[in-house]
């Protein structure tokens, strides 16, 4: 399960966003913004992948699950997302 860490403040632009955390500013591209928007509450990685496919379509090369996993890993590293335990709703 994945859930976002709430920033101290955030600004959303047409295709990008700025998230202000305690020690850093994170700039999100469209996929990062979509992941941020989907993770207000805990969500399974598979459900997140489904949501991203619905918004952006299947990636031209490689799998959607792999692309999602890489984006999630990057956002976890930046402190935007965290892994949480517990059962969340499955669609």
């Amino acid at each position: 399960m994945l859930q976002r860490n709430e920033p101290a403040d955030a600004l959303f632009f047409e295709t990008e966003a700025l998230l202000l955390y305690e020690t850093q500013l994170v700039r999100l591209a469209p996929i990062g913004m979509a992941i941020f928007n989907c993770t207000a509450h805990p969500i399974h990685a598979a459900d997140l992948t489904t949501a991203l496919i619905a918004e952006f379509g299947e990636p031209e090369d490689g799998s959607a699950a792999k692309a999602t996993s890489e984006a999630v890993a990057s956002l976890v590293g930046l402190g935007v997302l965290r892994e949480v335990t517990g059962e969340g709703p499955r669609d």
Partner: protein
Amino acid sequence: MNVVTVGGVGATVRVRFGGSRAEELDAEFRRIWSRCLLSEEAGAADVRADLFEPGQIRPSHSDEARITDSEAAPLLQRLTQAITAKLVARQVGKLLLLHAGAVSNPTTGASLVFVAPGGTGKTTLTCLLGTRYGYLTDESVGITADGRILPYPKPLSIRDGSARHKRETSPDELGLLPAPPDPWVRQIVLLRRSRLASGRASELSLINAIASITPESSSLSKLDKGLHRLAGLIDATSPVQRWTYSEAEQMVTTARSLLEDA
């Protein structure tokens, strides 16, 4: 010895001097901090600075509350850093705090705020512009919610030729004009020094401006809606400019047009 209170960015810090050369240190401090001196009284200090004879003490020492040395120049430099850190810390969560220099039109109060990391030209540009425009600070700009600047006309760290240490220098000694009573933000500028640049001003998009300025702010995340506050300030003034130059003189005409057209 009494405690001396200095003010800047809308806050105060109390300093006490000690050591065998306390009187010498006290006199020099008052001279170079003349524009920030508020009062003198008995009581507790926030920072203590002790100056001794060479060889009288072991290697220089400093922490947040106490600075000790046998040389005046490095002690005064570290004292400035300690005072600045305490003043800024007191306004965290209250003001928009930027690592920036600032000068102001003495008549209108319209001010140029130039943001840059340490060692990238804030003091040089301040010295150049400050003989024509009011000196607000060369290091830390505190901005209220309505865009007013709370001055911090501290001494400036200037390197004298081949001197080992920079020397804390009074703005009076450098001929810098006093701050006008109500300075306000006319224009924010990001400085970029480039050895071959001929001097160029370009406008930044709002997102690029905020992304560039935020790392040069102090504890923006502690300020309620800090990003919105910064965005609102930029919206209320004009697009942030990036100045790319090799010598500060290249940007004087641009600065004048901004400060005198307001």
